[in-house]
C-alpha cells in the first residue's frame, strides 16, 4: 500500500485493509485499538530509531493521531481508518514506512512518499515556480531592462 503526500500534510487519515491470516483471502473484522498485542510503528528515512505509535480509539471521519477505527464490518469487512501522527509526515524525510500489527491479521506495510509538490493543488501542484512570484522572477530574468522600465513607469 503506498501513498504520495506533500511533506507537512497534517490530520491525514489512511484507509487500510487487513487480511484474515487464517485464510489469507477474507477481510479481518473486529480489530480495534484495544486488541491485545496490537502495535503500530514507523520509521522515517534517515532516522536511526523506529518510533512506536500508541493506538487509540477514534471516530470514523475524524483525525486523531494513532486512532484505529473499523469502517463497517458488514459492507467493508477488513477496512480500517488509521490516523497518522503529523510528525510522520513532517518535512525532513522523503519516505516513511508505517506498520500495523494485529494478531491473526496481515496488513501490508504502508509506504508513504513525502514530496515537495502538492497533488491536491489544482492551481499549480504546489510548485512555487508556477506562482506569481516565481513567474515574475522568470520574466524579470528574461527581460531585465523591459521589466525595469515597466516597473519605473508603473511607479
Amino acid at each position, binding site marked *: 500500500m*503506498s501513498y504520495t503526500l506533500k511533506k507537512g500534510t497534517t490530520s491525514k487519515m489512511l484507509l487500510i485493509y487487513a487480511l484474515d491470516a487464517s485464510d489469507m483471502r477474507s477481510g479481518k473484522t473486529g480489530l480495534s485499538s484495544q486488541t491485545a498485542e496490537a502495535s503500530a510503528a514507523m520509521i522515517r528515512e534517515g532516522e536511526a530509531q523506529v518510533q512506536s505509535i500508541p493506538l487509540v480509539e477514534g471516530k470514523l471521519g475524524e483525525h486523531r493521531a494513532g486512532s484505529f477505527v473499523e469502517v463497517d464490518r458488514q*459492507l467493508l469487512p477488513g477496512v480500517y481508518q488509521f490516523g497518522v501522527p503529523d510528525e510522520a509526515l513532517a518535512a525532513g524525510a522523503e519516505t516513511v514506512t508505517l506498520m500495523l500489527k494485529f494478531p491473526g491479521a496481515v496488513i501490508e506495510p504502508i509506504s508513504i512518499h513525502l514530496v515537495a509538490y502538492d497533488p491536491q493543488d489544482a492551481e499549480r501542484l504546489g510548485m512555487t515556480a508556477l506562482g506569481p512570484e516565481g513567474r515574475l522572477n522568470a520574466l524579470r530574468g528574461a527581460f531585465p531592462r523591459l521589466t525595469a522600465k515597466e516597473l519605473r513607469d508603473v511607479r
Partner: protein
Amino acid sequence: MPVEHNYTMKAGTKSKLLLIYATWAESGSGKTSLTQDLAAGRAAYIREGDSAAHPVPMVKGRTGEWGAGAIAEVDPDLLPGVYQFGAPDEMVAEGSARAMLLIRFPDAVIKPVEINLVAYDPQDSERIGVWSLAGHKRHEFLRQALPRLTEMELKLGEEAEKELAEKLGAKKDS
C-alpha cells in the same frame, strides 16, 4: 495470484471503468462466471474522511460501457478472471484524496481497489490539469506583469477595431 488494483485519477472523473481481477480462493487462477450470480456479490466503498461506508448495488454490465455498479466479465477464455466495473461517480468525486472499494463474491479473492484522487489530470497531455498553465491564466499574468505593454496592446486592438468598423461602414455605403 491476486493482483493489486491501484489507480490515480483526477477527483471528479466521470464514468470511470475499472478493470479488476478475481481469482479462485484455492488455486489462485482466474475465477470466471461471477456475473452469473450477481445476488451473491457485494460491493461497497469508503472515501477518506467519510463517516460511513456506501454500498454499491451491482448490476450486469457490458464491456466497454459504463454504468454505476455495472460489472461485466471481459472474456472468460482470453482473460479469465478479468472483470470491468463501473465506478460510481460519487466515489471519485472531489472532496477526498482517497477511496477504497471492495468487491466480494463467495470463493473468489479480489484485492481492494485503491484510488488516489488528485487535483491534477494525469490524462491531460497539455498541462496535466494544472490551472496556472492554462492559456488564459498565462495571458492574465503577463498582462498584470507588463501593464504598459498591455495598454499598448489594447490601444492597437482598439485601432484595429476602428479600422474594421470604418471598412464595414464604407462597404455598406457602396
